[in-house]
């Protein structure tokens, strides 16, 4: 074999590309998901509007909260609230043995799959949602409930950087879920535990700034805030530039911590792997 060895990342890039291509085929699911997310987004916007009308001195403005909700609906599938169904299936059937046969770092291999998963689904779903919330609502005359443009040029750039970190962080959580799935021989337990945590603590259910003040220091520093709250507050201008850079650093630190944790779990799990079916 010649002409190889120069591209250490080739296999992992190939895995991302291949998975991405497969996931793009699930168009019907994307349409169904889109409808659901419009519906939930509408409900959330209405609830928040009522909430803001009834209270004064909120930690974010109503338009910020509305942007936060629509972005959350658009990027909902970036959230790592479950593991890779293929990993769960492989654990059930014993095909996981084949994963260990590949000359790849299994953690990086599964991380790559997670990256594909956390980008392919949003790639299908984000644009229609953003168009609906940003353009269609204006066209039909509901400008007050529509998604606005980012808070500024700096906010836009920082938002893009933060979304890149969301992908890294989300894939790290997904890969950790996958490793725990192998450890417990089922994805059920892990998913039941992780998915409410992710949905609440990312700000997907209720924007994190709306939680009580005394909870804010905890909410801000926990890893799941980096999945939604950080980029959305940057986008809406709720986080000023200085705070935004700090928040990006916090996201990055959690990526490193969760990757290391995932690697430790994976190494332990694989060293005492017991595959189904002998």
């Amino acid at each position, binding site marked *: 074999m010649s*002409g*190889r060895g120069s591209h250490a990342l080739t296999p992992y890039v190939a895995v991302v590309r291949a998975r991405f291509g*497969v996931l793009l*085929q699930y168009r019907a699911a994307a349409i169904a998901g889109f409808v659901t997310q419009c519906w939930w987004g509408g409900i959330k916007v209405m609830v928040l509007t009522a909430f803001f009308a009834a209270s004064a001195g909120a930690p974010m403005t109503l338009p910020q909260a509305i942007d936060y909700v629509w972005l959350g609906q658009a990027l909902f599938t970036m959230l790592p609230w479950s593991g890779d169904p293929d990993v769960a299936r492989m654990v059930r059937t014993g095909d996981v043995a*084949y994963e*260990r046969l*590949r000359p*790849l770092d299994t953690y990086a291999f599964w991380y790559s799959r997670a990256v594909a998963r956390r980008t392919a689904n949003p790639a299908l779903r984000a644009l229609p949602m953003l168009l609906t919330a940003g353009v269609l609502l204006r066209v039909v005359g509901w400008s007050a409930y529509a998604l606005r443009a980012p808070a500024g040029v700096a906010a836009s750039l920082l938002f893009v950087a933060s979304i890149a970190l969301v992908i890294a962080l989300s894939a790290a959580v997904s890969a950790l879920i996958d490793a725990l799935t192998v450890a417990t021989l089922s994805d059920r337990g892990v998913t039941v535990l992780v998915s409410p945590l992710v949905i609440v603590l990312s700000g997907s259910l209720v924007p994190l700034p709306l939680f009580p003040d005394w909870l804010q220091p905890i909410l801000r520093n926990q890893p799941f805030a980096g999945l939604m709250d950080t980029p959305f507050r940057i986008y809406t201008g709720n986080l000023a530039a200085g705070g935004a850079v700090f928040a990006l650093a916090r996201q990055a630190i959690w990526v490193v911590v969760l990757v290391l944790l995932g690697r430790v779990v994976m190494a332990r799990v694989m060293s005492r792997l017991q595959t189904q079916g002998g």
Partner: protein
Amino acid sequence: MSQIIVEELTKTFRVAERRGGLFGFLRRRWREVHALQRVSFALREGELLGLIGPNGAGKSTTIKILCGILEPTSGRCEVGGLVPWRERIRHVARIGAVFGQRTQLWWDLPVADSFALLRDVYRVAPDDYRRALDELVALLDLERLLSTPVRQLSLGQRMRCEIAASMLHRPRVLFLDEPTIGLDAVAKLAVRDFVRTLNRDRGVTVILTTHDMHDVEALAERVMVIGKGQILADGTLASLRHDVLRERRLRVQFAEEIGDFEIPGTVIRHRSGLSVELSFDPRQTPAHALIADIAARYDVEDVHVDEPPIDEVVARFYARHELEAR
């Protein structure tokens, strides 16, 4: 020099035993399962080893340790100078493996897409890949299958593709764990032909587990029987037969009714109408003498001497060692 060295390999699994009752989960007990107990053997480059034994005997555990998937509890093992589980990534790049009951192909995608991904995963250079693929397509007759989604393939077609998938990076050692399971006669023959070509013409070392003794008969010069985690026999199929069941079988078709019938040194196994099957020990009663004897006394239409079927030999061997599936 040996390519595969296994010394005193031991694997013990701890299996959780659930107890009944409301608080059964609080009293979880662990049971130890000795999958392999001090297994030792060596294999030269280019050898073909058939690994047989009842379900749960330790065949798959052995293969999985050699593939680097499982870590043994103790013992030494090297494949081509590498310790599989310790240098897993370097090791698996040099071996191929097929698990008959599993799939490594993407269910929804054409076969060619899975192959292309494996090419990238194994970092096979484009020219090498082309050559390997062309060769595999020709040997396994895959031309029409490449563009078919995996879920539309028959089991036999899929298995040919699985085997091709394991050879795209041209490994020097191939592990086949029950590659013919569930296949029809034609597909089995295709798999056997291919494995034979790989082993005889290309010198690929092969370790094969199977429950189909015809696989072993067709392919393996060397057979190892594993039972209860230990090696019970290691040699040629002929020597196993010689140890277990030396008798031969003689089927005689008579031309006329023969009435009471008895030949010294033989036992009647079946008798229906004009045909009789006898068993005899060729060391005491040579076949030619037996046939001459019968032909002299009766009007014989046809005779046929055979060895007992290999399945029967192996079943006897298992029975002797009190092996049954766990």
